[in-house]
């Protein structure tokens, strides 16, 4: 008997499994999967302006910084402003999805590819943003590689206002609707990486980015 058979057999015995209750059990499982019922939800004002406000509030609380421009076309300038303000070089790796923006017009030297260890700044968009907790939802793909938000010390993310949703449930619903099945990697990101392992003292910048900067695209 394989371990699989052994373990399942013991679980079945403990549950008094027989063909009848297995049949009803399977029906129940399919019903649960189809129902997708939600648990209790904290109140989040679903009006667009309220969502924007909440996303900003929560992102700041989680140690991200936030800037706002009207459209994606203005975003590279916002990036240049941010990097200059921190005395960081105007060099970055960006999602291929964002390659078409006018980066050089703002003095930025970017490469559209996955990130490597040497890259200090990574620029991404997002699949959507969760207002409830100030969280970015990123879905990996060839045009939106996961490494760009992970390896560099500085992560800059463009967030179109129309892609801000209330809670994680809405994010998953959008993924089901727009992507069909989940991509290999869905990453929810809330601020810079951190650890409290030494004397319960929070330090920003563990293995992921030290700083996360959101650029809200208010008219996108």
């Amino acid at each position, binding site marked *: 008997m*394989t*371990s*699989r058979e*052994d*373990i*399942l057999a*013991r*679980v*079945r015995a*403990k*549950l008094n499994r027989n063909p009848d209750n*297995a049949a009803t*059990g*399977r029906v129940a*499982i399919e019903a*649960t*999967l189809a129902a*997708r*019922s*939600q*648990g*209790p939800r*904290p109140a989040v004002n679903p009006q667009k302006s309220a969502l924007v406000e909440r996303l900003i509030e929560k992102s700041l609380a989680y140690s991200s910084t936030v800037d706002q421009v009207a459209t994606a076309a203005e975003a590279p300038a916002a990036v240049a402003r941010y990097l200059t303000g921190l005395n960081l070089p105007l060099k970055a790796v960006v999602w291929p999805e964002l390659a078409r923006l006018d980066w050089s017009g703002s003095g930025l030297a970017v490469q559209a*590819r996955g990130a490597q*260890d040497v890259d200090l700044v990574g620029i991404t968009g997002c699949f959507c943003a969760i207002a409830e*907790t*100030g969280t970015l939802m990123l879905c*990996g*793909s*060839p045009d939106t*590689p*996961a*490494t760009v938000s*992970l390896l560099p010390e500085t992560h800059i993310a463009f967030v179109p206002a129309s892609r801000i949703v209330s*809670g*994680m*449930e809405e994010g*998953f619903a959008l993924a089901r609707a727009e992507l069909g*099945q*989940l991509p*290999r*990697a*869905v*990453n*929810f*990101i*809330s601020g810079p*990486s*951190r*650890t*409290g*392992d*030494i*004397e*319960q003292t929070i*330090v920003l*910048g*563990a*293995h*992921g980015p030290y700083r996360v900067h959101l650029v809200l695209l208010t008219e996108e």
Partner: protein
Amino acid sequence: MESRARRFKSNSEAALANPVLQGNMRTAKGKFVDKRAISIKEIDDFEGTREAAKALRNRVIENLDLWLEKFEEIATARGATVLWAKDGAEICRHVVDIGKQHGIKKAVKSKSMLSEEAGLNLALEAAGIQPVETDLGEYILQINNNEPPSHIIAPVVHKGLDEVADLFHKVHKTPRKTEIPALTREAREVLREHFLTAEMGISGGNFLVAETGSVALVTNEGNGRMVTTLPRVHVVITGIEKVIPTLEDLSTLMRLLPRSATGQSISNYVSVLTGTKAAGDLDGPEHLYFILVDNGRADVVGSEFQDMLRCIRCGACMNHCPVYQTIGGHAYGWVYPGPMGSVLTPLYTGIENAIDLPHAATLCNQCGVVCPVKIPLPELLRKLREKQVEKNLRPWFERVAFRLWAWVASCPTLYGIGTWFAVRYLKWLAGGNQTIPILGAAPEWTRGRDFPAPEGKTFRELYAGRKS
């Protein structure tokens, strides 16, 4: 991991005498407890959310075999290989086999309590594969001669800054740092090297989502992402009880887990990983393995301890436990400390191997009140105590004492006589003082405190006297 739970009493007393541990536990308590209390106010309906979490966890356990099959079916369809392990030894065999099959020289690990249960790191080393812990706390333990963790969320809560600074200085051979950010930066640099060169990533699994065949990883440091994005092989080791039905259920649990664990509204990273690297993807593992582990869990299904399988490993119970707060986690002797450890260690390693743990509790129920999935921990501890009595595992004098007490208490006349003498004897022992400093009949009581003197007559005799 070998259990040292039999040495609980002596280990707990050693913990009391350790000033560094005592200081760290005091600090940790304030942070975990206070932050959690603030963060749960954000949920609006905390009790309702707990109830929903309890219900969804029960829903799976009640049909666990079918849910496991469902998860396996969908995960496999998405390109994962699903393996099963009866015990720790089999976990090690699977991982070593996978390592050999793919020519793995180094494996980076993000946190997996199951790999602790199995002693996986030692098995990997014996097979010529270098395991590197990447969770900062677990890394500190690993370079300190594989010291075991003392908390499931904060593995080095028992260590002070100086200890860590000395350790890094010794092992990394770098100048000794004195500030926590500098130490963290040093660890980042040392571990970054390993992330980039390891061929295999090993993680635990906070939850397995049956709907999509995915694993959800909840981390703050980013090591969970590193370990599952860069290496070409990813192995997930997790218990069979970790399956949840849908992504909506994950969303519900994500409101409770980070708040209960550290008081955060959300953990820095929640990674929902499904299948292997797709065509055109620039990152991700080419091979994904799930190892679904029994190691005692299957036997708890359908038992009077089944509630324990709802556990989502948040650590709130131990953070709020007066006993854990006083002695820390190592005294509990195995992978899981505090209230949940006092239930799991006997269940998974044998009741007779952890006799003290269910008794090392005041049954105050602070744990039950904060448990996000409403596990009635004091009830389970009491049931374990009852199991010990049924199996004749209690010391003979204890059994005799209770039989005697029950017999006397059932007979009012005998009781009246017995207590008449007892109160006079105790009053005499006190010799006119308020308290008795040493009481032979209850030496454990008087080791740390006095025994107050009784008034000298019983209520029953006084009441009878007043009435007549």
